[in-house]
């Protein structure tokens, strides 16, 4: 069975600092991997996705993530965060060629302080 683990439930950072949100997955098959962002009182918005090809994936709002098969990780990074990046971030995984469903991590609340 597939699982997705977000290693930090809360990450506080100062504005303009770099940030990394960690995600590990386990799967016996090839995977698709995603990061979604949820701003307060809104639905989830796709930030970036890894389907195949280059392991470094760039997304919206200056975020990027690297697929690391040997470490089964898909960490999200941004070199310099803004107050407006304060939100909850979800990592999710799906099985290639399998079910259309996604498995979500429990979320990481990123708080950017001035």
């Amino acid at each position, binding site marked *: 069975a597939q699982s997705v683990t977000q290693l930090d*439930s809360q990450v506080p950072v100062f504005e303009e600092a770099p940030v990394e949100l960690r995600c590990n997955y386990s799967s016996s098959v090839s995977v698709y991997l995603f990061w979604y962002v949820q701003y307060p009182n809104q*639905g989830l918005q796709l930030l970036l*996705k890894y389907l195949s090809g280059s392991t470094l994936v760039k997304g919206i709002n200056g975020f990027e993530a690297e697929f690391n098969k040997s470490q089964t990780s898909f960490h999200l990074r941004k070199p310099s965060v803004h107050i407006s990046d304060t939100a909850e971030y979800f990592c999710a995984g*799906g099985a290639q060629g399998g079910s259309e469903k996604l498995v979500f991590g429990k979320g990481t609340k990123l708080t950017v302080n001035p």
Partner: protein
Amino acid sequence: DVKVTQSSRYLVKRTGEKVFLECVQDMDHENMFWYRQDPGLGLRLIYFSYDVKMKEKGDIPEGYSVSREKKERFSLILESASTNQTSMYLCASSLVGGGNVQYFGAGTRLSVL
């Protein structure tokens, strides 16, 4: 742009009431999903539909049912609402063969009193 619309942003219902949550997507997606989101628990799949009139139970289907009579509309039904169903409900849709990318509605925050 894909648009997934949930009919209500906020709902307040009484224990025992029958509750309908409606979701409509405008991109002809085959797959539709209902999730429940609770603090610290992330998103949990309630039901999944892969075609009209076709459904599959998710991880927490107890106390819920669904209806998909038309491709664009997926309804979540709470037959007899209970206080432990107070939560944020999120609907999503995806295209078969679209790399499992799901598109979400804005969510319905349901309070059962």
